[in-house]
């Protein structure tokens, strides 16, 4: 049967991306499509879904925001420490059109960076919108500059870039320019807003969803959404804006590890 066990390797590099947000780079060769994730495994502790944010022929990297016990331990790892992963999993984004906008909120920007790189390589016109609560939490300022990526930054408290929400930035851009596709990954309420804005503007969108994941490959059912039952780990995590808006629970509730519902 089709099978795989985690690949474990010693961390080659740790990057401090922002306050409480770090990237870890593993010296492992693997094929990745932008928007895919992996089950990042801290041996003996736990494995959790994390988007793939760095990729070269020889390496693969992840950007983790310390929000709880597991992610804090990941963010405390050092070069040389062992870390494993299963995957890559999920469908990933599809590049469509000539002019695209890529919107990331919080660590959601992570999943979008590889997409932005690919879009640049393919010569697309791209604008990246990256949002965070405050300047110290903003991701990838350096990396966007290094890539020569046209980027707009937005902070809730106005401490850097535009003051306000990324969705407001999006609305403004859509008024000024004609755009083919909008890609979004971030807090679900922001994603819902983006999907609605795009739907209203008649612009295609691709939204990367998060749901509680236990296996990552379509067996455990933890990530199935109401009412279609679509598995975010297999049929997603990327859904078209229309698909996302048809998901009953989108922007409304999600399930935890024991399948109990929590409302946003």
């Amino acid at each position: 049967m089709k099978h795989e066990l985690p690949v474990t390797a010693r961390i080659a590099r740790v990057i401090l991306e922002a306050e409480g947000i770090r990237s870890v780079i593993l010296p492992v060769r693997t094929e990745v499509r932008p928007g895919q994730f992996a089950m990042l495994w801290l041996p003996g502790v736990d494995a959790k879904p994390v988007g793939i944010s760095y990729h070269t022929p020889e390496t693969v990297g992840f950007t983790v925001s310390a929000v709880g016990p597991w992610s804090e331990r990941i963010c405390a790892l050092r070069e040389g420490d062992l870390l494993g992963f299963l995957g890559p999993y999920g469908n990933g984004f599809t590049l469509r059109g000539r002019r695209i906008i890529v919107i990331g909120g919080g660590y959601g920007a992570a999943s979008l960076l590889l997409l932005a790189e690919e879009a640049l390589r393919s010569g697309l016109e791209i604008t990246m919108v990256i949002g965070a609560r405050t300047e110290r939490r903003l991701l990838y300022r350096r990396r966007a500059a290094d890539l020569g990526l046209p980027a707009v930054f937005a902070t809730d408290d106005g401490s850097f870039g535009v003051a306000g929400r990324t969705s407001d930035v999006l609305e403004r851009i859509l008024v000024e320019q004609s755009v083919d596709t909008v890609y979004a990954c971030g807090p679900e309420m922001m994603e819902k807003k983006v999907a609605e804005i795009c739907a209203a503007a008649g612009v295609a969108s691709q939204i990367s969803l998060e749901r509680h994941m236990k296996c990552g490959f379509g067996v455990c059912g933890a990530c199935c959404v109401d009412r279609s039952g679509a598995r975010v780990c297999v049929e997603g995590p990327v859904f078209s804006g229309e698909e996302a808006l048809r998901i009953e629970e989108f922007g409304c509730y999600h399930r935890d590890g024991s399948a109990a519902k929590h409302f946003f």
Partner: protein
Amino acid sequence: MPDLSVDLCGLKMANPTILASGILGISRASLALAVRGGAGAVTTKSISVEPRKGHPAPIIITYSGGMLNSVGYSNPGIDNVADEFADVRDVGAPVIGSLTGRDEEDYAILAEKAGRLGFDALEIVLSCPHTPGYGTMAGLSTPEITERITRRVKAATSRPVFVKLSPNVMALTELAKAAEAGGANAITAVNTAGPGMIIDIKSRRPILGGRIGGLSGDALRPIAVRCVFEIYEAVKIPIIGTGGVSTGEHAAEMLLAGATAVGIGTAVHDRGADVFRKVAEELSALMEAEGLRSIHEMRGGAHEA
């Protein structure tokens, strides 16, 4: 076209495939996904009295011989599933509610409460090999306890009751007979084997968060077929043959061993959530090639002298 339909203790199934417990099945929507994938019936993830978080991940790993899982019965508990499975009758196929308890008392409570939901049948799991306090690890695999629990559950519900057995017990046929004596309407054979462990040699850690996990898929199939074969000779009630079925040929093997219906879990990984339709179509094709018109012509065929 051969007739694949099955009447399993009153459950009308379009084909003999059943989504096994613990694969998808955590919500009404995930059951519906399997029904859209062609399942003749579907089973919920096992429900316990109290909510359970389950083990840390990885909870499921696949390797060259099959799959290991240590999900650890994560579920929101019987009182919280009422909502989830309230409108379960309209998923498009019969729904079997799977119940897992620590003792007789648990099962009585579960059966009573689950009996009020929309399930077409209840399956009681006396056979989890890797969760302390449950199944074989709680000593639930003796003939006496099996009969006693089955009787209690039967008394608490008017639904057909299926008893799910472990392949890891010597006294398998004794347990099947005990379940039958206790009033079980069918036997589900089998739960996962082992348990097993896989160690990551770089980090020197067991990979599963729960360290050990039940073995399913290819590795389990011959064991499951043997169990079904033995149980068929021991009891008169129907058997849901479960373990490693992923093709029409495997399903045929189970039916020939004596199964009335065929549970499918692990194969969702390899062949997708529509594995049920694929298996049913393959089964239909091979029945046609052999000139068989109904799947009743297969059941127990390996037992003829």
